[in-house]
């Protein structure tokens, strides 16, 4: 089975090489990094680390970058596509458990959840994530313990069906929406998120950012 790992990276020069080498060591060789118009040297660092690197000439946001990586993987004949964070938050060790349910054909997509086992997390981050869980439930009726985990594994069918139109952070909620709208079989798998100082700085902002995302979600609903 062709497993492709898609990593969206924006100014991740400090962490990307380590993430790529970790994946390579574990035996994953199809690594697709989408450099989303980084201002640092992410592009060359990822290239030297041995990944296939696609470059967005201008920054388009994480959702757009992931879609580019997924699109490229599909065209390159991927059977299974993994989305993985560039900042070292995700553990390579969790990959096996994430991939297994999809590989066996039982599920179309697995999503990592950091709340399925006890976890130590900064208060505001927990609050933001729980608000996101509520929003996803409120808008889409989707019951998930962790709606905004960037760690996902999908089969070809799921990758083709899920349509990401949100370029920025709200893509995470949109993916959940698509899973439910299109009746994909999904499973949450417990994963450990590593909160390093680096990933905290590069995190997805605080409550304010979450509210911005929420506002854009509502506007999108009105327009579409």
């Amino acid at each position: 089975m062709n497993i492709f790992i898609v990593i969206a990276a924006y100014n991740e020069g400090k962490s990307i090489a380590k993430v790529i080498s970790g994946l390579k060591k574990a035996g994953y060789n199809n690594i697709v990094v989408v450099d989303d118009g980084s201002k640092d040297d992410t592009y060359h660092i990822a290239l030297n680390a041995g990944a296939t690197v696609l470059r967005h000439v201008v920054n388009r946001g994480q959702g757009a970058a992931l879609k580019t990586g997924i699109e490229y993987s599909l065209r390159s004949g991927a059977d299974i596509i993994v989305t993985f964070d560039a900042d070292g938050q995700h553990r390579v060790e969790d990959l096996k458990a994430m991939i297994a349910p999809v590989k066996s054909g039982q599920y179309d997509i697995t999503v990592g959840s950091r709340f399925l086992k006890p976890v130590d997390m900064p208060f505001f981050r927990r609050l933001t994530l729980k608000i996101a869980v509520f929003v996803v439930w409120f808008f889409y009726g989707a019951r998930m313990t962790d709606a905004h985990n960037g760690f996902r594994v999908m089969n070809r069918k799921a990758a083709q069906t899920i349509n990401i139109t949100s370029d920025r952070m709200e893509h995470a909620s949109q993916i959940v929406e698509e899973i439910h709208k299109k009746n994909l079989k999904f499973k949450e798998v417990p994963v450990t998120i590593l909160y390093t100082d680096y990933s905290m700085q590069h995190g997805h902002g605080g409550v304010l950012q979450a509210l911005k995302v929420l506002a854009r979600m509502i506007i999108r609903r009105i327009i579409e």
Partner: protein
Amino acid sequence: MNITIIQVIIVVFALFAWSRAFLRMRGKDISVGEFSFWSLIWIAVLIVAISPGLIGGVSGILGIGRGIDLAVYISILLLFYLVFRVYVSLDAQKNEITKLVREISIRDVKIKDSKKKK
């Protein structure tokens, strides 16, 4: 009929804006339909500016005291609508840019891959 300074300013501005719309239509930047839309708006502005009493009757029926208030209300509604239209088209444009950026990035890698194979 007394003409106030503000009426003169509005009339001059409306004529100026209308002439811009006309020039853009002649330059084929906007369609005849769009020009008609803007013509309608600027003609309405001209009429109301020259004789505000004209819409006094209508505003009375609607329960708005002064004709000029009605004009302001309608302008605000129109502005909101135009802002919405701009927002929608901007959103569509953003999506198109993303599509372009995506295709360029994929094409670049494919070209590089095929060069490597050679």
